[in-house]
Each structure stands twice: as C-alpha cells, then as structure tokens.
C-alpha cells in the first residue's frame, strides 16, 4: 500500500496536477472591467455634443428669452438619451464605475432642468411678488458656463472609463494566434 502511494506521488500525481493546472490556466484570465463597447463609446460622444450645443444655444439666447418652455423639448430629449446611457451601463457586468458616472450625469441634467423651470416660474410671478426674480436670474451666464464645463468633464470621465476597457482587452495571446 505504501509503495503504491509513493509511486502515485512521484509520477502520476504531479503530472495530473500539471495537466489540471494547464486546463485551468488555458481558459483562465482575470476580469475586472466590462468589455469595451464601441457603440457605447460613440453614443457618449454623440450625447456630449448635443449637451454642449444645448448650452451654447442657451448662452446665445438673451436673458428675457431664456424661458423654460423654449428649452423644454431639448431637456426631455437629452434626458431620454442620458437615461438610455445609464441603462446600457447598468446591465453590463463589471461596470460599477461607468454606471455611477452615468447616474451622476443624469442627476445633474435633471437638477439643472428643474432649477431652470423653477427660476422661470419665479420670473413669471406678478411684479409685486416678493419672490419675483429678474430675467438675468432665470439662468445666469456664469452658471450656464459652469454647467457646460461640468458636463464636458463628466463626459470626458465616462469616455475615459470606456476607452480604458479597450486597454484592458489587449490580447496577451496575440503571438499564439499569428
């Protein structure tokens, strides 16, 4: 019995371990981030452009004409795009950070939309109302510029997060395939 064990340990078992290890390692790779999504990356750039154009238009509009109604349709359309971006990120495994960034972008968009709406309503109050604000306070240039830059930074963040996934996917077995 002892001899049999000794024989197995010296010859068969190490070989079996090696083969098992090989089988395990052949399909073994570490995964920490989601796969790169080229269509998703394009979508980020597209929405970023739409948002930037929106703020450009807002800046070009005279204070008296910065009504919420004038921009409401655009607000809704971008909100739908941003919600779509968030869902696309949420359903991908290993994608916690991009999901969180997309949630922050959506959250800021809704916050600024609601603020624009409430400021517009305050502007429309009767002249003698203590809460009435001036046209220049509906959406101040200084805030429009800040929000435009903030969205640029947020879209850069989500675009970098997506591009990083391309880096992670570099093919370590390239040599084997050639």
């Amino acid at each position, binding site marked *: 019995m002892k001899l049999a064990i000794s024989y197995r340990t010296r010859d068969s078992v190490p070989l079996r371990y090696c083969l098992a*290890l090989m089988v395990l390692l052949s399909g073994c790779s570490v995964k*920490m981030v989601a796969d790169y999504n080229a269509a998703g990356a394009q979508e980020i750039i597209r929405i970023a452009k739409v948002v930037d154009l929106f703020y450009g238009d807002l800046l070009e509009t005279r204070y008296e004409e910065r009504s919420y109604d004038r921009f409401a349709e655009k607000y809704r359309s971008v909100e739908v795009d941003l919600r779509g971006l968030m869902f696309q990120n949420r359903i991908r495994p290993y994608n916690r950070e991009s999901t969180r960034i997309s949630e922050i972008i959506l959250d800021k968009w809704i916050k600024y939309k609601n603020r624009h709406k409430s400021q517009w309503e305050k502007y429309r109050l009767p002249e003698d109302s203590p809460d009435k604000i001036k046209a220049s306070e509906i959406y101040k240039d200084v805030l429009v510029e800040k929000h435009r830059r903030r969205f640029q930074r947020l879209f850069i*963040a989500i675009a970098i997060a997506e591009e990083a996934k391309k880096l992670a996917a570099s093919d370590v077995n390239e040599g084997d395939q050639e």
Partner: protein
Amino acid sequence: MSFDIEATIKSMLEAMKGVVGDNWKDVGSYAGQILQNKKEVFRQLVEEKLRGDITEDEFASELEDEKDTFEAELDALNVLKKAMIQKAVNAALDVLYKAIKMAL
C-alpha cells in the same frame, strides 16, 4: 520535463512591469488633469462668490455638484487602474501558462 519556478516568476513580473510601465503615464496624466481642474474650479467659485456673481445657495449647490463631478472623475481613474491591473495580471498568467506548456 523541467519547470523552473524562479525563472517563471521572474518572467511573470517582467511581463507585468512592461504593461504597468507602458500605461502608468496615462493614469498619472489624467490624475494630474483632475487635480488641476479641481484647483481652478474652486478658485473661480470663491472669486465669483466674493464678487457677488453667485448667491450663497448657488455657491453651496455648485460645491455639491463639484463633489459629485470629482467622484465621477475618480471613478474613471479607477477604471483606468483596474484595466491596467487586468492587463498586467493576464500578461503574467499568459507567461505562466506558456511555461507550464513548455515544461510538459
């Protein structure tokens, strides 16, 4: 059949070092950009508050949004780091796999 564990580990570390070295500057450059943005944004915010361009409420709201933006930028940095680690570890595993294959 021989398997030199020492040489294999050395090769695995070399493979990881190569990957990290190639990509570390991307992480460093983005981290630097985030900090530069942060400094500039806070300087502007304080100036605008002192000039009266923004109200107390607007100042507080912008600070809150800045905190979230910073979180998003750190999240992006985190993905960059994770991607680099994934690539480095897989490069090392590839070396190990090839070494075992050759030893058999």
